[in-house]
């Protein structure tokens, strides 16, 4: 007797339509994607794992050695989910000094780092020449600059009276190598108006990425969830990323992570691990055209991050020698490189170093 597949009748009593739609490699439409929420954790996980193995048949998990350098915490945006920023004039606002920068770069080089994740607040005091010097310093030290985010770029275009394309060209000329996908939060303006009304809207976020991709830059994309959005709005977020990726092919990776309410004005309870894993698995299933899916150990901790590798993720993110933004909420996980490799091996994968463009080193 043929064993019955465990996912459908025995476990959940759901009809098989959604998974049947998935398995031949067909694309999930909006309706089907939203119905994924009806599936249980293990069903979603095994479907996501299948999708991951189809994309990455080699059983390896990549990670990068880097640090997050936050050159300033002064920010006019004032997002309600952020515990890191300080408004202009605040006594504990800062702009990173050049000697401090040099020391951070040296330490990263000593740890075998290949690049820097560079991000900061929307600081009206800093002009193009500051950024040219900042990028140049990092590039000249032999490290790649994985820098900024769409909200920063939109802010500068406005401040410096340039087009987005001109801003990006200026930064690339200074040495920018790729752009992280931060500031996406939830790409739905209903949510953005409530949580981050002074930040770029979803169309602008996508426009920055489309422009960068057109100029040949690779970028990642993120989603911060578990605050004011609905599950359906998470799906809309994924569909917007997928649509742009169909047009440009410029996204390297998708990185979902959960809102950490500590010390933020939004507050509330953090989302749990099951909802994180379910959202991660759904991301893998919907984003069939984005190559990599990254775990967020900094918000989930090492144990859940390891499990995430069984729920569709194929990248462990970075060693993050330094991280300030999540740490400001009081969530303080730290993982040395050796431990990342152990976690990956215990899950049955080969750890592989990569750079910020996801090329293996």
């Amino acid at each position, binding site marked *: 007797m043929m064993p019955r597949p465990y996912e459908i009748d025995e476990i959940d009593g759901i009809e098989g339509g959604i998974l049947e739609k998935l*398995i031949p490699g067909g694309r999930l439409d909006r309706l089907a994607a939203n119905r994924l929420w009806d599936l249980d954790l293990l069903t979603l996980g095994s479907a996501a794992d299948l999708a991951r193995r189809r994309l990455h048949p080699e059983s390896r998990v990549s990670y990068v050695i880097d640090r997050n350098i936050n050159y300033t915490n002064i920010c006019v945006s004032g997002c309600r989910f952020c515990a890191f920023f300080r408004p202009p004039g605040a006594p504990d606002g800062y702009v990173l000094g050049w000697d401090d920068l040099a020391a951070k770069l040296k330490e990263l080089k000593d740890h075998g780092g290949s690049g820097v994740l560079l991000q900061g607040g929307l600081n009206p005091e800093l002009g193009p020449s500051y950024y040219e010097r900042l990028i140049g310093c990092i590039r000249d030290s032999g490290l790649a600059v994985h820098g900024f985010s769409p909200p920063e770029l939109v802010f500068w275009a406005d401040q410096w009276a340039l087009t987005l394309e001109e801003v990006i060209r200026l930064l690339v000329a200074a040495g920018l190598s790729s752009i992280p996908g931060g500031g996406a939060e939830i790409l739905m303006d209903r949510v953005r108006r409530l949580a981050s009304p002074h930040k770029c809207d979803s169309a602008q976020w996508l426009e920055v990425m489309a422009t960068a991709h057109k100029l040949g830059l690779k970028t990642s994309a993120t989603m911060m969830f578990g605050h004011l959005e609905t599950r359906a709005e998470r799906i809309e977020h994924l569909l917007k990323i997928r649509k742009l990726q169909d047009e440009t092919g410029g996204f390297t990776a998708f990185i979902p992570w959960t809102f950490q309410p500590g010390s933020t004005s939004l507050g509330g*309870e953090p989302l*749990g691990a099951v909802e994180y894993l379910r959202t991660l698995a759904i991301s893998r299933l919907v984003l069939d055209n984005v190559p990599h899916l990254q775990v967020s150990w900094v918000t989930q901790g090492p144990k859940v991050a390891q499990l995430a590798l069984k729920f569709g993720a194929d990248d462990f993110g970075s060693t993050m020698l330094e991280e300030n933004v999540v740490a400001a909420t009081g969530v303080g996980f730290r993982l040395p490189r050796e431990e990342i490799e152990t976690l990956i091996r215990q899950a049955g994968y080969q750890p592989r170093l990569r750079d910020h463009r996801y090329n293996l080193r």
Partner: protein
Amino acid sequence: MALPKFQDPDLRSIYEKVAAKVRLDREDGLALFESADLLGVGALAQVVRRRLHGRRAFYIYNQHVNYSNICINGCKFCAFSRKAGEPGAYEMSLEEIFAKIEARRYEPITEIHIVGGCHPDLPFSFYLEMLRGIKRLRPAVHLQAFTAVEVAHLSDRAGLSVADTLLALKEAGLGSLPGGGAEVFSPRIRQNLCPEKLSPEGWLGVAQTAHRLGLNSNATMLYGHLETLAERVDHLIRLRQAQDETHGFLAFIPLAFHPQNTGLSELSGPSAIDDLKTLAVSRLLLDNVPHLKAFWVMLGPKLAQISLCFGVDDVDGTVMEERITHMAGAQTPQGLTRAQLRALIREAGCEPVERDTLYRVVEAA
């Protein structure tokens, strides 16, 4: 139409047994532990979990009392135990214990969970007085007290048989025994890690004597130190045999080894994958033990939540002031509120049910 199947073909034959309610054997247990298909093993455990409990997930409003860490056993895996007079050694007086109970008198606690070391000097009357005194303060609470290891130690101290010791404790208010002290039954491991401790035969003897006297108990397995997977399977099967005979085990609780501050601090402790697989295999092998508990103090609330999708139906309690695991470096909070536990369970897709020690439903006050 091709649907996702078990990645590990060995799981198919086990699935057929599970579906047909056929008991799994030692080889099945090993195949499950050795399988790389974590989600497949979890899905099998869920078949059993849902058959037994549907979507219900239990928790309890309880209070822990670790009355003393002074212990004549020097188990290598323990960060809690101290010799008398050693720095960090403590023992609570009866007055201190009663004050702790008194301090939470107005909380709707249904169980007080009492565990300590094998103290060299405390007289048997101390333990009887402890139970009687707590019962006087809170007549309605259930006292889950003293592991089989402590009971055997008390019977030595009192010069009574195990049965008479248990009867005296029951008379004083004992309701059931916690499951600690089973460790891993393998003689090889016990010789290495806890040679002075009560033997497996002794542990099972106390538990089965308790069952025959009408006292329920739990069972545990400390895993993730030096034991092999086969030794875990043997432990589970031995418990299953004992349960076939006396039927008194209410819940099985695998305990993840925490290496910090122990004699095995060079080890790293089990991975999250090992934690979930151990829970799932336990659910599958222990077909005659009704409940499988994930002790969130050891696993952390995140993993405890995930475990509800890997065969677990109980996340233990609200717990305040737990000392044994925290002295081994557990980073978990000291207590979770009822609301936090209920939210954690709901988010895992389960229905939260408050229970008492004997798994009777407690209607929320």
